[in-house]
């Protein structure tokens, strides 16, 4: 019942946004400033049918996925090292603080000087997403229950056994939270970097080309594509987390039979 209410609230809220959009468009009465729902949806159908659509979407997804995986792997390893060794944490501290404070646009612009347009989104997304996940994993390591570590020492639960059955599960909440935040950040930074650097393929590049030609309906259509990609990415991530939890429970049940 609670989830039905929640779904209904989300649907109504989304509908409210669309109504505000349509009312705003009618009041402004300018297709350049704010096209209505109808023209934007028509344009969306048109661009989906066009040649560059699939290539652009796939390029953005590939960049986002690459950046996300690199962030998850490096931030997890560094976060664990930072949590375990105070010296490593001290060494990382200036990098992390600087990266958290630097505006995303500065990073993209600097990266554009150093790299080619295809690499800039990847590099920028990494620099923006890494500190978020690193901080989560590092603090997650520090909050591991010391009394359970003492128990593991006394009962001689060591090495791989400790890693698989205690350490990794204890870190899972921090890993999931860090990865979730990093993922939503990755989409935004990738698309923003594509807008600025205009690689041959990419959702952001298409947005930029449409904006230059004052095709606001196309800009909004590509924005809708970006929203759908982000939402689909989030859903896929949550599904993977739920699937892994289910898999663990199933394996645990089987092993106790």
């Amino acid at each position, binding site marked *: 019942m609670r989830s039905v209410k929640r779904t209904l609230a989300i649907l109504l809220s989304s509908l409210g946004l669309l109504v505000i959009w349509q009312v705003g468009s009618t009041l402004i009465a300018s297709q350049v400033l704010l096209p209505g729902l109808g023209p934007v949806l028509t344009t969306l159908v048109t661009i989906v049918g066009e040649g560059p659509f699939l290539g652009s979407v796939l390029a953005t997804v590939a960049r986002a996925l690459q950046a996300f995986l690199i962030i998850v792997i490096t931030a997890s390893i560094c976060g664990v090292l930072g949590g375990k060794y105070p010296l490593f944490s001290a060494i990382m501290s200036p990098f992390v603080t600087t990266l958290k404070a630097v505006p995303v646009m500065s990073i993209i612009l600097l990266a554009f000087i150093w790299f080619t347009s295809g690499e800039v989104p990847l590099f920028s997304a990494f620099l923006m997403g890494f500190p978020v996940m690193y901080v989560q994993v590092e603090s997650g390591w520090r909050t591991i229950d010391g009394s359970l570590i003492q128990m593991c020492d006394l009962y001689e*639960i060591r090495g791989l056994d400790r890693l698989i059955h205690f350490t990794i599960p204890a870190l899972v909440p921090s890993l999931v939270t860090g990865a979730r935040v990093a993922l939503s950040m990755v989409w935004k930074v990738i698309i923003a970097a594509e807008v600025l650097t205009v690689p041959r393929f990419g959702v952001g590049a298409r947005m930029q080309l449409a904006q230059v030609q004052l095709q606001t309906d196309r800009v909004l259509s590509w924005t809708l594509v970006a929203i759908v990609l982000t939402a689909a990415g989030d859903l896929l991530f949550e599904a993977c987390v739920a699937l892994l939890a289910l898999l*663990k429970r199933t394996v645990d049940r089987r*092993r106790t039979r």
Partner: protein
Amino acid sequence: MRFVEVSKAYGDHVVFDRFSLEVEVETILAVVGPSGQGKTTLLHLASGLIEADGGAVIKEEEEIGSVSYLFQEPRLIPTATVFRNVELSLRSSESCATVRSQIARYYLEVVGLSDYLSLYPAQLSGGMRQRVAIARSFAHPSRLMLLDEPFQSLDIKLRYSLMDAFLTLWNESPKTTIFVTHDPREAIALGNAVCCLGDPTGPLLYQRIDTPQRARGIDDERLLALEGRLVKALLGS
């Protein structure tokens, strides 16, 4: 096991000052005492978690090796099932998974948890969690057993039921045990000997109890008198 002229201080707070105490091999020494008088320190010294500032903790040959520690709280791995929590404590000593599984299942059966093997700690009551901890402490092939007020937070019925489960398992494989508690009655129910801490230089009271645990009645006059002496020693300290 012998604590020979052991000294231990935390800053200015002297817990033990040339303190000596003996625990006979394969017996239970119940230790009572007010808070901050060294009960947990005694267990930590026995387990090797901390080192004495002076003196020595001497173990007999049959006490050297692994330690089973039953804490105040169950300290179970929350993401591991009941079965896995016990089975993991066997991994360092037993390489065969089938044997480990048999041992874990056996101890969980003795504490009455055969039907709950696939549950996680959060799905159990407090008493059931402590039963898992008891099963784990016996499944772990240890030479020395240390109990730090493991029945403290439980209601009286559950407390006696768990003490009974503990005694059943302990009688099957007796090992040198130090049982720390706040409750003189609990100490008398389980200990082959009881001692009262409160003086850094030595126990305020030490008394062997010859009556087997199972034969001890709550109206036994000698035991009631001992309980009275323990309470007096506690109040005096």
